[in-house]
C-alpha cells in the first residue's frame, strides 16, 4: 500500500505497484488537472514534477515515486517559477482548448527552475516533448521568454 506525497499532502493508496502515477492522480486522488494524452510518453500532457524534475506520469509506475515529492499543475502556482509561468501564460493568452496546457506549464516551470534565462533553442529542447494540437507553440515560446524576464 504505497504512500505518496502529492502537493505536500500524504496519500495512502490501495493501488498496484505498477499502476502509472497518471491514473493514481486522476482516478484515485481525483486530481484531474494532469491529463491523459497518449499513454506512452509521446505527448507530454501528463507531465508532473517529481522532486522538481519533469516526468511523464503515464509511464511512471507508482512504486518509482514513493518517498518523493510529487507536484501537479494544481499546486505549481505555489512555486516561484510556476507562478511566473502561469502569469505569463495569462498575459500572453497562450491557451486555446487548454487540454495540453497543464503539461506545457509543468515542462515550462521545470525549465525555468533549472535555467532562469533559456535561449530559443533551450526552450525548443525543453518543450519539444509536449504536443499542442491547437498550435499554441509561438505563444508558449513568447510566454517562457516573458516569464524568464519577469521579477
Amino acid at each position, binding site marked *: 500500500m504505497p504512500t505518496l506525497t502529492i502537493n505536500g499532502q500524504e496519500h495512502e493508496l490501495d493501488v498496484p505497484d505498477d499502476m502509472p502515477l497518471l491514473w493514481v492522480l486522476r482516478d484515485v486522488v481525483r*486530481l484531474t488537472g494532469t*491529463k491523459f494524452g497518449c499513454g506512452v510518453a509521446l505527448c507530454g500532457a501528463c507531465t508532473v514534477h517529481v522532486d522538481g524534475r519533469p516526468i511523464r506520469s503515464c509511464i511512471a509506475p507508482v512504486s518509482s515515486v514513493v518517498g518523493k515529492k510529487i507536484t501537479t499543475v494544481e499546486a505549481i502556482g505555489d512555486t516561484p517559477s510556476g507562478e511566473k509561468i*502561469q502569469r505569463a501564460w495569462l498575459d500572453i493568452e497562450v491557451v486555446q482548448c*487548454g487540454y495540453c496546457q497543464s503539461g506545457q506549464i509543468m515542462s515550462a516551470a521545470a525549465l525555468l527552475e533549472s535555467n532562469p534565462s533559456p535561449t530559443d533553442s533551450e526552450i525548443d529542447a525543453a518543450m*519539444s516533448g509536449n504536443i499542442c494540437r491547437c498550435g499554441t507553440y*509561438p505563444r508558449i515560446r513568447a510566454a517562457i521568454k516573458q516569464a524568464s524576464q519577469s521579477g
Partner: protein
Amino acid sequence: MLHRCSDDDKEDQKGLSRRTFLITGVAAGGGLMLGVCFTRSRGAKAQTGEETFEPNAFVRIQPDGSITLVMPQVEMGQGTYTSMSMLIAEELEVELDEVGLEAAPPNDKLYKNPLIGFQVTGGSTSVPGFWEPLRRAGATARVMLIEAAASQWQVEPAACRAEKGEVVSPAGERLSYGALVGAAAKLSVPQNVTLKSPKDFTLIGTPAKRLDTPEKVDGKAKFGIDAMIPGMTFATVSACPVFGGKLKSVDDSKAMALKGVRQVVRLDDAVAVVGDHMWTAMQGLSALDIEWDKGPNADVTTESIVQQMARASEKEGALARSDGDFAKAIPNAAKKIDAVYEMPFLAHAAMEPMNCTVNVTKDSCDIWVGIQVATRAQTTAAEVTGLPPEKIRVHNYLLGGGFGRRLDVDGITQAVAIAKQVDGPVKVVWSREEDIQHDVYRPYYYDRFTAGLDAQNQLVAYHHRVTGSSILARWAPPAFVKGLDEDAVNGAAKEFPYAIPNILVDYVRDEPPGLTTGWWRGVGPTHNIFVVESFIDELAAATKTDPVAFRRSMLAEQPRVLGVLDLAAEKAGWGSPLPDGVGRGVSVQFAMGTYISQIAEVEVTKDGEVKVRRVVCAVDCGQIVNPDTIVAQIEGGIIFGISAVLWGEITIEGGRVEQTNFNDYRVLRINETPTIEVYLVKNEEAPGGIGEPGTVGIAPAVTNAIFATTGRRIRKLPIKSQFGPE
C-alpha cells in the same frame, strides 16, 4: 465551462469570483445542477415570477444584477465563450466580466445555429451565425430595462440611456438592472430593436482577455474526461480493428481474474472492460483473448481505395459550376495542361482522447461529455436506451480540441450501449490507439484538372473534377441534392475567385469501403484550396509568370481577395532575395466568409528535409470581434495545417488503419514551428469565420514554396511521401 446555478452560487462567492466559470459536473457537495437550471420555461415572452428577467432564450438577469448568457456554442479552444459574451455585453451595456455563462441544454428550437439549422458548433459559424441574434438578445433586454426605468421615472425611454449595468435618467438618476428585473419582466418583448452602430462599439473589436483561460492554467478546468461522478467505474474499449467487422468471441477469464476488473461488456462490434480505474480497465483489455469476424472489408487497402476512386473520377460528375462553355473552348486552346492531385485520409488526434461518461437507469440517462452537437447526443442516447429524449440529460463540458471530431456522436452511441450493461455511472475512455484507429476520417480526395491557355497565355478554359466521399450525404442527408456535395466542392466552385471565361466544376461521389468520413478543420476548403491554389501555381509556372502577378491578373473583380494578397505580399517581402534552398509560395482563399492570403518561406535541405521557416498571413474577416482570438486561431490553424501537409496520413491495410499513436501519426512540435505573422484588415463587412480558415491555405503556400526552390511540384499529400528522410 459553465456558471453553476442554484445552491452552488453560494460556494462560488465564497472561494471564487462570480465571474469564475464553473462546470456542471460534480463538485464537492454540489451535485448536478444542469437539469435544475433549465426547468424554467423559455418562450419569446418575458417570464414573470421568481423575479427573473428572461426576455429571450439567451439572456437572464436576476434581482442581484447577475447576468447569465445561456451559451448556445461550445468552447473547444476557439474563444467562443469570450466572443459570444462580447456580443451580448456590447448591446446590454455591461462590462464583459459581468456576464456569466451557462451551457444551453439540448434544444434545436431555441439554440439552433442559424447558419446550419440545428444546435451545432462547427464550420467556423459561431460569430457569423450569432452575430445578429446575440446582439439582438442583448439589445432587447437593454430596451426593456430602459423602458422599465423610464416608466418608474415617468420620463420618455428615449431620454434615458443604459450604461455599465444601470439605466440613467435625463436628470442623472440611476437604477441598476437588478432593481429593474421585476418591472422589466412584466413588459411585452419588443419585436424590433435598434442595434448599436459599429462606430459606437466599446467592446466589439477591442482586445478582450479570454474568459476561460484562468482555470486552464491551474488544472481546475473540467473537460469531458474529467467528469467524476460518485460511484462511477472506468472502462476502456476495443472496437473491431477491421472496419465493419464484428465480435465473434472473447475469452475473459484472465481479465476477470485481475484485481479491480469488474466486468467485461460485449457489444456487436466491440468489447469493453470495466474496472475500478482506467489502469485496471486497460490491463483487463489487454488480457482479453478476442476473436473478430473481420467482415466484408478485410482486404481493403489504401491502394484499392485509390484505384476505385481513380476509376470513378473518369465519369462525369454532378455539376457544381458552369460558366461559358468549357467543352467548346478547350479544343481551341493553344496550350493544354492536365494534372491529378491526391489528398490522404486524416485523423483528428485532438489532445483529449474520445471519452464519454454515462449513467443509465430504468427511466433516465445522464451523459457527461464535450460534444459539438448536443441534440444529436441526446437523440442517439434515446435510440440506444429506448428512453424518450426528454429523459436524456446532456452535461456539456469543455472540449479538449474538436477540429470536427466531436461533430459525430459515435463515441456517445457506443458509451451508452456499454453503460446500459453497467450498474451505475461509467466513464468510457478510448486509448490514443483506439482514438486514431476509429476516427471519422477526413476523406481521401482525387482531383482532376484540365486547363487551356490561349496564345497570349491567358487562362481561357478550366475544368476541375472533385472525386471523394460525401460527408454531407451521411451527416446531413437532406443537404446532399442531385449527387452534389456542396462542401466537397467548397472553395472550388462558387467561391473560386478567379475570372476565367469558361469554367466547369463537377463532383463524383465515391465512398471508401468500410471507412466513415467526417469533418476535419477547414472541411471542403482545406481540400479544394490546396488543389486549386497548387494548380493555379502550375499555370503561373507554365506561363512563366510570377505567381502573385498571375493571380492578380484574374482578380480584378475581387477587391477583398486582392487586398489580402497585396498585404501578404508586401509584409512577406515578395520578390526579395532568399538564401539558397529557400523558396516562397503563395495562396489565396475565400472560405467561411473570410478572405486570406498566406505566404510561406520553406527550406528544402540537401538531404530532402522540409522546414517551414516563416508564414505571413493577411486576414480580412470583416468586422472583428476579439482581435487577439483571431490572431491565435490563425496561428493555430496554420500549425494544424503544417502537420498535415508535412506528415498527416492515415493509411489502410487489411481493412484497418495502420497508424496508432503520435509516433506514426506525426504532428508538429514547438521546435518545428515557424515564425508566424498575422495581419488583420479592418472594415465593417459582415463577420466571417475564423476557427478554420488558417488551416485552409497553408498547404499550397508550403508546396508552392517547395516548387519555387526545387522545381518539384507536390501533387500528392503529405510531403513526407516524396522527399527523403522524414
